């Protein structure tokens, strides 16, 4: 049974609650990134690149049985961790749920305060791209 977006977001928020130190949070994000399955090299091309990141982020999506699945990779360990969190939350969800999700966990785990002020990390670009994929499949 596929968990809902909110359920997964709550799980992530609980995991991050364990850390007081921001450096530990980053270490955890990097670990999550390391566990992200490798993206087929045929998708690691400019066509799948998310614009607006200082590092490279490739994002691929496909639809199966009414649900959208995401695969991603990055040449930055931190960015890969962030995109892995987004994939964990959004992959396997229905298009309309992806489009309408406010992704509140980002604020809950205090990621936005640390990252989104720097346009270089492309957090918002990744979200825009994932929602655009969902819209295309909807």
């Amino acid at each position, binding site marked *: 049974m596929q968990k809902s977006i909110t359920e997964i977001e709550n799980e992530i928020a609980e995991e991050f609650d364990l850390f007081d130190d*921001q*450096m530990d949070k980053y270490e955890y994000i*990097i670990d999550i990134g390391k566990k992200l399955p490798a993206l087929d090299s045929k998708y690691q091309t400019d066509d799948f690149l998310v614009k607006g990141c200082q590092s490279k982020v490739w994002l691929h999506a496909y639809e199966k049985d009414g649900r959208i699945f995401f695969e991603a990779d990055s040449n930055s360990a*931190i*960015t890969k961790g962030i995109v892995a969190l987004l994939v964990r939350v959004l992959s396997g969800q229905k298009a309309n749920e992806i489009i309408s999700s406010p992704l509140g966990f980002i604020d809950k785990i205090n990621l936005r305060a640390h*990252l989104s002020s720097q346009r270089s990390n492309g957090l918002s670009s990744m979200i825009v791209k994932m929602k655009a994929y969902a819209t295309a499949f909807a």
Partner: protein
Amino acid sequence: MNASIRAQFPILHQNVNGKPLIYFDNAATSQKPLAVINAIKDYYEHYNSNIHRGAHHLAQLATEKYENARTTVAQHINANEREINFVRGTTEAVNLVATSYGRKFIKVGDEIIVSEMEHHSNIVPWQMLCEEKGATLRVIPINDSGEIIFEEYLKLLSEKTKIVSIAYISNALGSIHPVKEIITEAHKVGAVVFIDGAQALPHKKFDVKDLDCDFLGFSGHKVFAGTGIGILYGKESLLEAMNPYMGGGEMIKSVSFAGTTYNDLPYKFEAGTPHIEGGISLGAAINYISEIGLDKIAAYEEELLAYGTEKFLEVEGLRIVGTAKNKASVISFLVNDIHPYDLGVLLNEQGIAIRTGHHCCQPLMERLKIEGTCRASFAFYNTKEEIDVTVNALKRAVKILS
């Protein structure tokens, strides 16, 4: 250099992410001493007024201070006041010369020379000019240490060469170019030389007569003054020969629909109400560094560079990008195959400000076959202790990222 200097920079005394701020992004912009902050405050509190035309007390005071700042800049680089044009920064200085000098004097088949390691600001305006005029942009290659290859430069020079435009110091790697020799050789073929002094002025004494450079551009905010102000120096005869860059107030002698006559130098290139407090802040900044002494600043920064280079290399897997023999206090580096952005984020988390990315030098990054670097750039208010803290923070970041 000591605590009394750091005390002059209020911004340095704060915590970032719970750690004392270490500011190593001086090549991007420098911090401001109280002398500069107070000059700006003083202007708005006591004599804010539009300059040059007002007959009243405040206007006279503002004009006097603004023109004094111009004199300070002129003396600082050994020029005369008519050769000192206030502009927004180095970028505007390059664009002004490319547009105003370039449009008048560059013709089909002419050549303009830049180096492979220029900032985009010293590439794109020339590309635009070349496109407009049917001229060709030629590029001096660099070696693996990040030095221009002088013999290759000599080969590029010919009677077709009309402009050579080069940075005194590379912003991305810190390499110091042999500008005096570059200028001498350019003059032999009749070309004029623009020196991008953005990275040089904070570190070095600059003498336009000694170097015999034709144009020099630099930015106030990199020499401890406010943002939005910079200087274009040009030899008087060249500036006289050029047409105005922008039309408007201040740059005219008289206006009628039958025709307009332009003002004398330096006002010819200063249309509109200028950045008055910016100019004044630049004067204050130059007075401030002159009081400390640029020789003293340069010697201390060399010490920081030597110390920093040695200490940074203690980090396992760290390699310095740009190892020119003659270098300013900039350390560009990479660690193993770690993305520079990751190191930047984890250093920031520990209160340390460095730059990551291509540093507006994409052609250079392409030449070096890298996407970008981490860049730590030191100013005279930085300390060896800050370098030690940074090295430890780097080791922690590398451990997390490996």
